[in-house]
C-alpha cells in the first residue's frame, strides 16, 4: 500500500509539473465541448431549392411562395427549363429541384391528379431525406387547403387522422441538450485513453521503466499506480465539463449526479486499462498514438453520439457492447435527461464492469518485468 502511495505521488507531481498537460487536460476539452455541441448538429436548417415552374398559374405561384416562406428553404433560382435546374444541382448549388408541370392548376381543378416532381441531391443523405420530408409536408398542407378552397371533396377520405406528437425528455428538441452530455462523455474517455496510452511508453523511451523493473515492485502496483492519477484527472475533467455544460447550455440534470460519477469511475477504469494495455505493446509514443487512434475512431463512430445505435446493422450493434464510450454516452444521456436511476442503467454498469476487469487484467498480464 505504501509503495503504491509513492507511485501515485510521483505521477501527480509529474502531471502538475508539466506545463502543457494541465491546460490540455482541462481547457481544450471545454473548448471542444462548446464548439462540438453547437456545431455537430443533425438538424437540417437550410435547404437550397430550385423551382421549375412550367405552369405559371396562380396556384403554382402560391405553392412556391408557401415553400419559400418556410425559413428552412431558400430559393436559389427559378429557371424555365429542367436542364438549367439540373445544371445548378450538378454544381452542388441545389439540394432539391421541384418541378411543377404544365397545366398543373387546370388538371387539379378538373379533378385529375396532377403530379409534382421532386429531384433530390442525395450526396448528402441526411439533407436529402430531411429536406424532402419538410417539402412533402408543406405540399400536403397546400393540397388540403386547396381542396377545401375549391370545394372539392377530399380525394382520400381517410386523410383525416390527426397525429399529435409530443417530445418526451427533451420537449423542445434542444439539440445541445442531447449532444452536450454525449460529447462530454466522449471527451472524458478520449483524453484518459490517450494520456494513459502515452504514459508508460514515455517511461520506456526515457529508460525509467527499466529502473522500475529492477525494483521488487509488483506488476499490479505499477498498473494501479498509473491508473489512479489518471482516474482523478478524468473525474476532474468530468466535473468541469458538467459545470460548463450546465452554465453554457443549461443542460437538464434530472437524475442523481452521484450515479454519473459512480458510473464514470468504472468507465474510466475500463478505458484506462485499455490505454495501459496499448502502452504495454508499444515501443514508441508514435506507435501508441496510432493504435490508440485506431480504437478511438471506432469508438467514436460507433458510440451512438452521431448516429443512433438502433439504426446500425445488427452486427454493428453487437460491436457497441465492448465499446465503453457507447455505454458512457447512454448512461449520461439517460441519467441527465431522463432522470434514470441505478436500476435503469444496470446493463451499462454490468458491461462496463466486465470491460474494466478484462482490460486491466490484460494490462497487468501484458506488463512484463522480465523479457
Amino acid at each position: 500500500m505504501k509503495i503504491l502511495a509513492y507511485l501515485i505521488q510521483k505521477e501527480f507531481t509529474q502531471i502538475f509539473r508539466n506545463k502543457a498537460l494541465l491546460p490540455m487536460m482541462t481547457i481544450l476539452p471545454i473548448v471542444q465541448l462548446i464548439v462540438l455541441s453547437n456545431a455537430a448538429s443533425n438538424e437540417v436548417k437550410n435547404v437550397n431549392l430550385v423551382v421549375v415552374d412550367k405552369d405559371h398559374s396562380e396556384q403554382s405561384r402560391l405553392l412556391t411562395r408557401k415553400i419559400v416562406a418556410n425559413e428552412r428553404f431558400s430559393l436559389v433560382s427559378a429557371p424555365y427549363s429542367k436542364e438549367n435546374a439540373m445544371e445548378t444541382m450538378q454544381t452542388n448549388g441545389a439540394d432539391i429541384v421541384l418541378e411543377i408541370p404544365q397545366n398543373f392548376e387546370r388538371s387539379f381543378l378538373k379533378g385529375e391528379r396532377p403530379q409534382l416532381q421532386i429531384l433530390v441531391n442525395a450526396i448528402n443523405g441526411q439533407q436529402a431525406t430531411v429536406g424532402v420530408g419538410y417539402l412533402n409536408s408543406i405540399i400536403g398542407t397546400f393540397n388540403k387547403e386547396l381542396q377545401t378552397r375549391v370545394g372539392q371533396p377530399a380525394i382520400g377520405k381517410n386523410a383525416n387522422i390527426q397525429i399529435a406528437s409530443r417530445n418526451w425528455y427533451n420537449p423542445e428538441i434542444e439539440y445541445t441538450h442531447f449532444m452536450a452530455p454525449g460529447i462530454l462523455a466522449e471527451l472524458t474517455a478520449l483524453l484518459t485513453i490517450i494520456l494513459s496510452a502515452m504514459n508508460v511508453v514515455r517511461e520506456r523511451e526515457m529508460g525509467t521503466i527499466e529502473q522500475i523493473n529492477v525494483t521488487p515492485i509488483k506488476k499490479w502496483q505499477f498498473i494501479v499506480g498509473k491508473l489512479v492519477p489518471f482516474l482523478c484527472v478524468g473525474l476532474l475533467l468530468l466535473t468541469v465539463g458538467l459545470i460548463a455544460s450546465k452554465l453554457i447550455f443549461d443542460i437538464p440534470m434530472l437524475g442523481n449526479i452521484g450515479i454519473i460519477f459512480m458510473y464514470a469511475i468504472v468507465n474510466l477504469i475500463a478505458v484506462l486499462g485499455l490505454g495501459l494495455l496499448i502502452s504495454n505493446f508499444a515501443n514508441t509514443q508514435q506507435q501508441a498514438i496510432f493504435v490508440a487512434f485506431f480504437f478511438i475512431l471506432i469508438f467514436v463512430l460507433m458510440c451512438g453520439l452521431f448516429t443512433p445505435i438502433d439504426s446500425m446493422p445488427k452486427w454493428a450493434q453487437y460491436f457497441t457492447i465492448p465499446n465503453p464510450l457507447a455505454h458512457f454516452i447512454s448512461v449520461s444521456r439517460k441519467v441527465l435527461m431522463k432522470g434514470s436511476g441505478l436500476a435503469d442503467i444496470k446493463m451499462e454498469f454490468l458491461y462496463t464492469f466486465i470491460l474494466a476487469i478484462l482490460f486491466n487484467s490484460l494490462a497487468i498480464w501484458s506488463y512484463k518485468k522480465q523479457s
Partner: protein
Amino acid sequence: MTEHAIEVTGLTKRFGDFTAVDAISFHVSKGEIFGFLGANGAGKTTAMRMLIGLSKPTEGDGFVAGYNIRTEAEQIKKGIGYMSQKFSLYNDLTVKENIRFYGGIYGLSKKQIAEKTAEILEELDLLEVAKKTVGALPLGWKQRLSFAVSMVHDPDIVFLDEPTGGVDPYVRRQFWETIYQQADAGRTIFVTTHYMDEAEYCDRVSIMVAGSIEALDTPKELKKQFASTTMDDVFLKLAR
C-alpha cells in the same frame, strides 16, 4: 553459493538463431569490484540483464545475492542496485523527489527516506540543488546521483552499466572514488565499461568476445598473460 555474490554456469541467451550470450560461467566474490569488459555488441548488457532479472536466460543457471536467477528474480531485486547507461532518473522530478520515489518503491520508511536523502545530498554535495529538477543538472552530477539512488536500499551488489560514458577524466576519477568507497564498505560492484584505464581499477576483469568470456583474471595477470603493458593492448589482442 554463499561465499560468492554472483555465480553463473553455462548462462546462455538466444534471440531466435542469434546467440547473444554463449554459455558463460564465472563467479564474483563478495566485496569485489568486477570489471565486465567487451566490445560493443559482445553481449555484456544482455548478460547483465539476465543477472538483474530483466531478461530470462535461455539456458544455464546462476545465483545472485543467494537467489536463483531463473526462479527467484523478484527476490534478487530486493538485494541489488542497478544503474543503467541512461541513468534512469526522472528529469522532471527534483533531486529530492527522485530519492524519495525510489526509496519509496523499495519499501523504505519515511524516516529512512529522510535519512537517506540527507546522507546523499551531503555526500554528493547536492544540498544547493536539492530542489532543482534532475534535467537541469550536469551529466557528471546526474551520474553520481544515479549511482547513489541505485543504492538507496543498501543492496549487497550494485550493477553499473557503463556508468561513466560521456564525461571528462576528472569526473570519472571522482566517480571511481565513490565506487571504491562502496566496495570498502563491503558492497560488491559489477561494472561494465569501455574505458581501459577504468579496467585497471577493478579487482578482476573479464573480457567478452562474441558472446563468450575469453579472458578472466586480475588486470596484472591479464597483462602478463597477453604480454602487454596496458589493458588497452590486452583488449585489442582479444577483440581482434
